[in-house]
């Protein structure tokens, strides 16, 4: 098991700087997820750790060793690619054993390691098949198996589930979580899906425009977002953000002060239809989206502000109905605007 340290890491393609000074510590055996919108640099950062991209400046340490100039294969990392990147001309057995063969391991040891990984991932019956003869989920397992056989110190996953359908994605997510528990290796995982990030991560790194916005456990990020960007990126449906002045008066009555220049965040699932007594907002339902377990209400609260409210149960307010909304004081977030 190995720790990772990134010290003021920067990456530029020509004059375009895509990673703008990242400092990060990843502990032994930790499952760290990089999340962020498209183009935020999360995949580039992962590729820099893997060695597929050079580090423009800064220092990258894997297991205490500076690896800026070390070849990808000599960093002790293995990568699972978004497209699986299985060699189409090799069968599953040869795909999994390819890296070991390149490293010059003996055939018997390659066979033993491939067999062991195949057993772990239930790939035994598929060993003689070619990638084209496998389903998406099976290919994904082979890609993971190829990473496992090398006994890497660090696993790197680059959006590995994004090509799978919703059902299989949930299944594979659970398999990856189980794999981490079993192997206890350090894992770095890139995704733009915040549900994947929340369910898998020990630690989430939220990136925006090549910089870290916040690092923390999923619970930390959900309960104490550092700014509006993180607050809206973590959680689904995303957090409602209202101008401070708009709700300051109502919140002060509930004992919550809103300093000047701040905004107020309220998660849709924390708002509830309330009596006039504990209401902080009043509004009118402009849309009710039925989701099965409940409804997602779009509520016009005046001054051009529409907020989302998660309403549980089957008796949602009707279109056009005036409602009062309440929230527990501990669920109100006072945030710095992005």
């Amino acid at each position: 098991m190995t720790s990772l340290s990134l010290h003021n890491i920067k990456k530029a393609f020509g004059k375009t700087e895509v990673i703008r000074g990242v400092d990060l510590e990843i502990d032994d055996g930790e499952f760290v997820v990089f999340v962020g919108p498209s183009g935020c640099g999360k995949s580039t950062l992962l590729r820099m750790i893997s060695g597929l991209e050079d580090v423009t400046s800064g220092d990258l340490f894997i297991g205490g060793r500076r690896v800026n100039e070390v070849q990808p294969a000599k960093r002790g990392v293995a990568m699972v690619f978004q497209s699986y990147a299985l060699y189409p001309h090799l069968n599953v057995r040869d795909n999994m054993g390819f890296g070991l063969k390149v490293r010059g391991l003996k055939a018997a040891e390659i066979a033993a390691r491939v067999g062991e990984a195949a057993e772990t991932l239930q790939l035994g019956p598929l060993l003689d098949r070619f990638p084209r003869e496998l389903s998406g989920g099976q290919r994904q397992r082979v890609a993971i198996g190829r990473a496992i056989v090398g006994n890497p110190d660090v696993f790197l996953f680059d959006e590995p589930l994004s090509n799978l359908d919703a059902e299989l994605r949930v299944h594979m997510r659970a398999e990856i979580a189980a794999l981490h528990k079993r192997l206890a290796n350090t894992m770095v995982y890139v995704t733009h899906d915040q549900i994947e990030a929340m369910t898998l991560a020990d630690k989430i790194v939220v990136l925006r425009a090549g910089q870290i916005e916040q690092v923390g456990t999923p619970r930390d990020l959900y309960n104490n977002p550092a700014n509006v960007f993180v607050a809206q990126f973590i959680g689904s449906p995303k957090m409602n953000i209202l101008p401070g002045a708009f709700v300051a008066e109502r919140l002060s009555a509930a004992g919550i002060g809103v300093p000047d220049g701040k905004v107020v965040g309220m998660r849709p699932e924390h708002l509830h239809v309330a009596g006039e007594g504990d209401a902080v907002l009043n509004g009118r339902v402009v849309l009710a989206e039925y989701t099965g377990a409940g409804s997602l209400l779009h509520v016009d609260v005046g001054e051009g502000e529409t907020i989302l409210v998660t309403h549980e149960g089957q008796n949602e307010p009707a279109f056009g109905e005036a409602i009062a909304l309440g929230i527990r004081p501990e669920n109100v977030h006072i945030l710095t605007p992005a």
Partner: protein
Amino acid sequence: MTTKQWRTLNRVLWTVSLLIAAVPFVFPFLWMLSSGFKSASEIFGQPSLIPTVWHWENFVEVFQYQPFARQYFNSVYIALSVTGLTLIIASLAGYALARLRFAGAGLLMLFLVSALMVPEEVTIVPNFFLIRWMGLTDTHLPLILLPVFGPHGVMATFLMRQYFVALPKELEEAGRMDGLTTLGVWWKIALPMSRPALAAVAIITFLFSWNLFLEPLVFLSSLELFTLPLALSNFTDPYGAPLWHLQLAATSLAVLPILAVYIIAQRQIVESFAMSGVKG
């Protein structure tokens, strides 16, 4: 009429139409084969696809008239050398142009492609002076070097480059993660995945070399060094008139390697297409 009957009729009509359309292409070939077995007088007599008397001895005489076996061997080894060298050099150069980042790569490609626009007849004179200066006239080396490094080699490089550009980069990155060098990635990943392109380049190059006439005519003077196109034009009587029965028998023998190359390479192309696709 049921749907099944319609389909059968449709298939029959298509087959018949295609067979008719194939006649202009197949007939000269059959005529060549048939005339190779005829006597010189019969070729100009009553036209018939089946010879009245089968002159098997034409195929023996072909080898007695001039050193045809030696000339056949010349063509085979030159075409194989040109094909092998072109495949190696064009795939290496194509890979470099497709994947290596170096200053002026685009300009170099433009420069190379522009060379394709110069007809070989224009360059044959300077090439002749160059080859004579190198002391390589009346040897096979110009017939190997010019196709490999000339416009045909550039065309092969261009084809390979276009194919490599379209290969998924992640597969090559996976190779690097597995410990391959750039050369290793080319050899163990890019090349096995480029079998359709390699097969196409192999066919085109083999045909090009096999049919090369101008260069052998300019650079060779010894009969033993002749290649097949020159040798075929050499089956003449003392007055320079063609000996058709020998020419056509020899030509029948000359097409055999081309058929073999095509059949082998075609299988490669079909198999490789079946293998394509990174994800489903």
